[in-house]
C-alpha cells in the first residue's frame, strides 16, 4: 500500500488539482467565517465558529475531491494502467484513500488557521473581544476532519459506484444541497439519520441531535461507504 500511497501523492502534486481543491476549501472557509463574524448581531465568542459553520461546504468540497479522485481514473482510462501495476485492488483503493485523507487533513489545518486569522481580523475591526480559542481549535479540527472524512468516504463510494464525474457530482449535490436541506426543515427525524446532518452535529452546528449520536451515525456512514466502495471496486470488471 505504501507504493500506491506514494504514487497517488505524485499525482496529487499536479498544481491545478492541488491549488484548485485547496483554493476552493480555503475560499469557502474564509467566506463563511467573514459572514459569521461580520453579520452576526452578537459576534460568536469562539474564534473557530466560522470554521465550524463552514464545515458543510467544506464537506461537499472534500466529497467532490474524493469522488473525482476515482471518477477521473475511469474517465481518463488510467485505472486499467494502475491495475496492471497494482492488481491487488483493495490495496490500490486503500492507498488512494489514504493519500486523500492525508491531503484533506493538511488542507483542513490550513483552512482552520486561515479561518481563525480572518475571524480575529473581523472581530478586531468590530472592536469586539474574543475568548480563548486554542484548545477549542484542536477539538474543532478533529471533529471537522471526522465530518469531512464522512463526506470523503461517501464521495469515494459514489465515485466507484457511478464511475462518472458528472453523474456522481450531480447525485451528491442534489442530495446534500437539496434533499437534506428540505428534509431538515420538514422531517423532524432527519437529523438523526441523514449523513450530512449527522456530520453537522459532529462539528457542532446547532441542531436537535446530540454529539454522541452524530458521532455514532458518522462512523456508521463511513463504515458503510468504505465497505460498499471496496466491494464494488474489487469485483467490477474494468471495461473502459
Amino acid at each position, binding site marked *: 500500500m505504501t507504493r500506491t500511497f506514494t504514487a497517488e501523492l505524485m499525482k496529487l502534486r499536479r498544481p491545478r488539482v492541488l491549488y484548485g481543491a485547496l483554493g476552493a476549501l480555503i475560499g469557502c472557509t474564509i467566506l463563511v467565517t467573514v459572514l459569521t463574524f461580520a453579520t452576526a448581531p452578537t459576534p460568536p465568542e469562539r474564534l473557530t465558529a466560522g470554521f465550524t459553520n463552514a464545515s458543510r461546504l467544506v464537506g461537499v468540497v472534500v466529497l467532490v475531491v474524493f469522488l473525482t479522485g476515482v471518477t477521473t481514473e475511469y474517465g481518463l482510462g488510467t485505472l486499467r494502467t494502475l491495475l*496492471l*501495476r497494482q*492488481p491487488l485492488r483493495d490495496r490500490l483503493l486503500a492507498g488512494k484513500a489514504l493519500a486523500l485523507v492525508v491531503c484533506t487533513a493538511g488542507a483542513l489545518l490550513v483552512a482552520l488557521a486561515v479561518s481563525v486569522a480572518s475571524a480575529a481580523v473581523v472581530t478586531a475591526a468590530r472592536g469586539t473581544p474574543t475568548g480563548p480559542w486554542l484548545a477549542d481549535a484542536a477539538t474543532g479540527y478533529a471533529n471537522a476532519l471526522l465530518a469531512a472524512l464522512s463526506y470523503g468516504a461517501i464521495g469515494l463510494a459514489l465515485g466507484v459506484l457511478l464511475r462518472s464525474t458528472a453523474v456522481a457530482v450531480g447525485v451528491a449535490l442534489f442530495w446534500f444541497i437539496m434533499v437534506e436541506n428540505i428534509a431538515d426543515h420538514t422531517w423532524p427525524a432527519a437529523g438523526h439519520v441523514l449523513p450530512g446532518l449527522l456530520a453537522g452535529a459532529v462539528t457542532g452546528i446547532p441542531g436537535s441531535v446530540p454529539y454522541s449520536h452524530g458521532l455514532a451515525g458518522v462512523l456508521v456512514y463511513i463504515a458503510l461507504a468504505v465497505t460498499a466502495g471496496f466491494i464494488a471496486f474489487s469485483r467490477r470488471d474494468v471495461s473502459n
Partner: protein
Amino acid sequence: MRDMTTAISTRGLTKRYGARTVVDHLDLDVPAGVVAGFVGPNGAGKTTTLRMLLGLVRPDAGTGSVNGVPLTQPAGYLPRVGALIESPAFYPGLSGARNLAVQATLGGLDPAGIPAVLERVGLAARGASSYQSYSLGMRQRLGIAAALLGDPALVVLDEPTNGLDPAGIREMRGIVRSINQDGRTVLVSSHLLAEVEQVCDWLIVIGEGRRLFQGPTRDLLAGGGDLEEHYLSMFTSTEGTS
C-alpha cells in the same frame, strides 16, 4: 534458439455481457518468445480477451495461465507483463517521464530505468514535456515505453498502430521487432493484416469470440496467397455455415 514453453494458454475462456457472449470457449496457446498476431473483425472479442488475460475483466468460464501462473492470480504474473490496452491512458497534466515515474512507483520498479525506455521509443528529448502536448504517435510510443518498464517477459499491445500515419506504422513495426529481439514474447492485436504478416511469426484469428485459426503464420501462408486472402476466406466460410 527460442524457448518454446507457453507464454499464454487458455481453455474454454468465456465472457458474457448479459445475453451476449463476447468470448466463447476460447482455447489459446502462445509459445514463449514469438511475436503473436491477434486478429479479428471489430467486436470479435479481442480486447475483452486481452482484458481477461490482464486481470481487468473476470472470465465467466474457463481457465488459463500467463507465464505459467493461473489467470485467477494476476498479481502473480503481471509484474512480468507490460501492456498497452486499447489506447494510451496517462495523466494529461504530468510530463511523459512523470507519468512513467507514477507507474514505476506503483509497480515497485526502479525509476532509473525510465530514461532508457524513453530513449528506446524515441521520446528521450520530449520526456519532460507535458503529456497533453504529445501527438497521437508520441502517446502511442509513451504507452509502449510504459509497457517496457520493469523488463517484462511478455508484452501485450492492443492496436498499437491505431491512428498512426504510414511513417508511424513503420516505426511501430521496428519497435515491436526490437522488443522481440530481446527474447520477449509479444502479443499484438491489430487490424492491419499486412503489418501482422510482416511482423508476426504466430497467428491467432478469432471471430464472434471463437478461435478460427491458431498456429505459425507460415503454416497459414504455406499454400500461397497473402494473409488478407486467408483471413477473408475464413469469414466467408464462417458466414456460409452460420
